[in-house]
């Protein structure tokens, strides 16, 4: 099964875009969605996608608050443990 990091990268690719452009996520997930320019509407939808995929509690504010996607993946792993 794919790692949490790989699944998060895939979900970003499938669900997020900025001005019609795909969001480039580095392999180490060292990017902040806020600094990418993801809108509040995108955060609301993406938080729901993460909850559905991993069955962990996550709010849009949680999602926007992580410094990087790596932190989001770590949060998911911690919740699932």
């Amino acid at each position, binding site marked *: 099964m794919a790692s949490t990091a790989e699944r998060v990268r895939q979900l970003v690719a499938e*669900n997020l875009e900025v*001005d019609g*452009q795909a969001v480039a996520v580095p392999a180490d997930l060292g990017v902040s969605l806020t600094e990418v320019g993801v809108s509040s509407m995108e955060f609301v*939808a993406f938080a*729901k996608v993460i909850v559905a995929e991993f069955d962990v509690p996550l709010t849009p504010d949680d999602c926007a608050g992580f410094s990087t996607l790596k932190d989001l993946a770590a949060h998911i792993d911690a919740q699932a443990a």
Partner: protein
Amino acid sequence: MDASPVEDWWRPFKLVGAATVIHVDLKPDAAREAVALAWLDEPERSRWRRFQFAGPRRRFGLCRAALRAMLCRRHECGNGQLAFETARHGKPFATVDGMPVPDSFNVSHSGRHGLIAFAPAGRLGVDIEERVAHRNLDLLVETVLGEQEQALLARTRGDARTRLFFKLWTMKEALIKAHGKGMALDPSRLQIPSAMLGGTTRSTLQSPAIPGVRWRLDDLSNEQFAAAVAHEVCEASGPSRGNGKAPRTPANP
């Protein structure tokens, strides 16, 4: 910095009770963006540089510079005296020489349009959205809208459905931003007054989701975008108490 021939990229848009709403033109313009960058302080420039895409970088820079210019005018201060801090749930507030300024403001941008709302008192929130297709629209509808609102949307088709969704979204987002606690407030519990669902552009409401507070809500949508402003109704900021004066701005930092 020397005087610049670049004209202001913001204009008065609406007066809504005690609140003044400014429209910010966010179309690509290298000259404007260079002037805007000169207004930003170092932390803001650092944030500006970190944006991955040109669009969000431009929207942040042009809106923040416009906000700085207008706050300087309103508070008769220099740009170097002005700074921004962030409240617990991320809502920014301004300080002059380290002291919080008393008036409220809020900023929103989408695509080529930005709005900045100011009011002398009372919590304030503004939201603007260009009506672009969203791949997770059904998910957003389930998450954000209440049962009555979802039922209304289900009876609406085509372009009218898109317009209704964005109208509801911006009104709820404006209320959430005014409340100041982010998505800790469940948007599906914020029921938009039925009169506004039917086309009325102004209403006041109290929501069980935010006990004890009355809000004035204005739908500012036009053909180019959906937008709304929410303003806490209180003695100092009631709709009849504002000065209604659109701020003017100096041309340079």
